[in-house]
């Protein structure tokens, strides 16, 4: 086990394309639902406990060694919006590229061969964590942090928020992140016995609706 690899994997500067994605924050800003630090925090709390929890469960299960192609199917079933499936696979492909350079590993090569156009990002994240010698709980932590780290960074750029206030949002949500990661890792432990149905499937109707709105918007800063 190699805990420092978690810092490398979860670093916002890890070159896997995340910087161009807002996780739905741009559309929420456009709709006026996120306009200040308080509404950003509410957005992040909702995203963390829905999309973040689902991603963490998939990542933890992949890190535990569960078949990534069955997790691909589970991710599809948990992602109703095609714009979000598309984004997840795009980011998965970009992450796979970075992860194969950082932690060369037969499992990552095999996934790249099986899914040449990209696997779901949380599945790749979990497999990358496994190849980096990390635990399922570590992978869940990386996924939960990423699920709100991106939107916070995007909101700083979109709303000109004070970056100190924005970072404080992440710090305030740290206990929530711990809780979500633990829940996801617990669920992942049940996957071997109960199948992927044991994984969280928390949905966020507004994230689904706004993802499709954003996908057809002409003028936008972020890819999602």
């Amino acid at each position, binding site marked *: 086990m190699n805990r420092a690899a978690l810092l490398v994997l979860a670093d916002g500067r890890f070159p896997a394309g995340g910087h161009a994605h807002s996780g739905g924050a741009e559309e929420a800003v456009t709709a006026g639902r996120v306009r200040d630090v308080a509404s950003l925090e509410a957005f992040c*709390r909702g995203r963390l406990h829905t999309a973040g929890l689902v991603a963490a469960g998939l990542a933890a299960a992949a890190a535990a060694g569960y078949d990534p192609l069955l997790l691909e199917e589970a991710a599809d079933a948990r992602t109703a919006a095609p714009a979000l499936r598309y984004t997840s696979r795009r980011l998965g492909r970009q992450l796979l590229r970075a992860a194969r350079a950082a932690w060369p590993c037969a499992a990552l090569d095999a996934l790249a061969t099986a899914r040449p156009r990209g696997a779901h990002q949380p599945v790749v994240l979990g497999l990358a964590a496994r190849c980096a010698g990390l635990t399922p709980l570590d992978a869940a932590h990386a996924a939960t942090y990423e699920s709100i780290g991106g939107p916070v960074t995007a909101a700083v750029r979109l709303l000109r928020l004070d970056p100190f206030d924005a970072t404080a949002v992440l710090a305030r949500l740290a206990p929530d992140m711990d809780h979500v990661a633990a829940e996801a890792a617990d669920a992942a432990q049940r996957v071997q016995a109960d199948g992927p149905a044991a994984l969280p499937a928390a949905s966020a109707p507004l994230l689904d609706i706004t993802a499709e709105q954003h996908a057809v918007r002409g003028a936008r800063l972020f890819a999602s």
Partner: protein
Amino acid sequence: MTLAAVPPSSPLPTVPTVPGVRATARIRAIRAGDTTVLPTLVGDGPFDLRRARPHGSQARVCILAAMSAPLGGDRLRIDATAKHGADLHITTAAATIALRGPTTAHATYDVHLRLAEHARLHWLPHPLISAARSNLRQSCTIDLAATARLVLREETVLGRAGEGPGRLSTRLTVRRDGRPLLEQQATFGPGAPGWDGPAVLADHRAIGQILIVDPTLEHRPPHARLLGDDPATGQAVLTPLAGPALLITALAPDTLRLRRLLDAAHPIG
């Protein structure tokens, strides 16, 4: 509770010695020549099952409520099976209201729908209303054979007029030919983190879904489509799933506008 009047012939509600009713409704539809017949149609506790007038080859069932349910502690279950080639339509007579009841313990309401090859099922219950201080865990599990077709509409309202919602968790699991097609969970109300924030519901209190599973969608998958530009009147999206299915997700301030959106997205006769 279900708001329909209870006819005098209905069984009287049993008074449980411990809080909470355990009740199951069972429906089994089979194909018989050009029609669908219902060899099993039984319900106890709050479930009063009625045969409605058939619609061509389609058998129709209406679930009436014989008592207030679900209340805290109740364990309710509906099992419906459409056998090979059967065509079944199920609805409820009125809205189902989750209430607190004698205990703060959660109630469960589990629906299991099974569709064999070439079977067709319409599952179109009236809205589920989560009343203040209620605590309900609802699930709907659907298993479809590869050639089966499903039309499902579910509407949920968080709180009666002028009150906040109770605690409601829902889970929708759809498997087709043994593979997962759709998995969705949601938790709303007091103690549920982020549910009323800008990523999940914002200030919408009526949530609706239409799910269509139809093998012919494999050859003509629908495009994603947005409905409702004004958040004040609600918004919806029609999305193709990763399989021969489409899902309409709608949010609105109330049931009336929710139904209007759902009807606009996909009218159901």
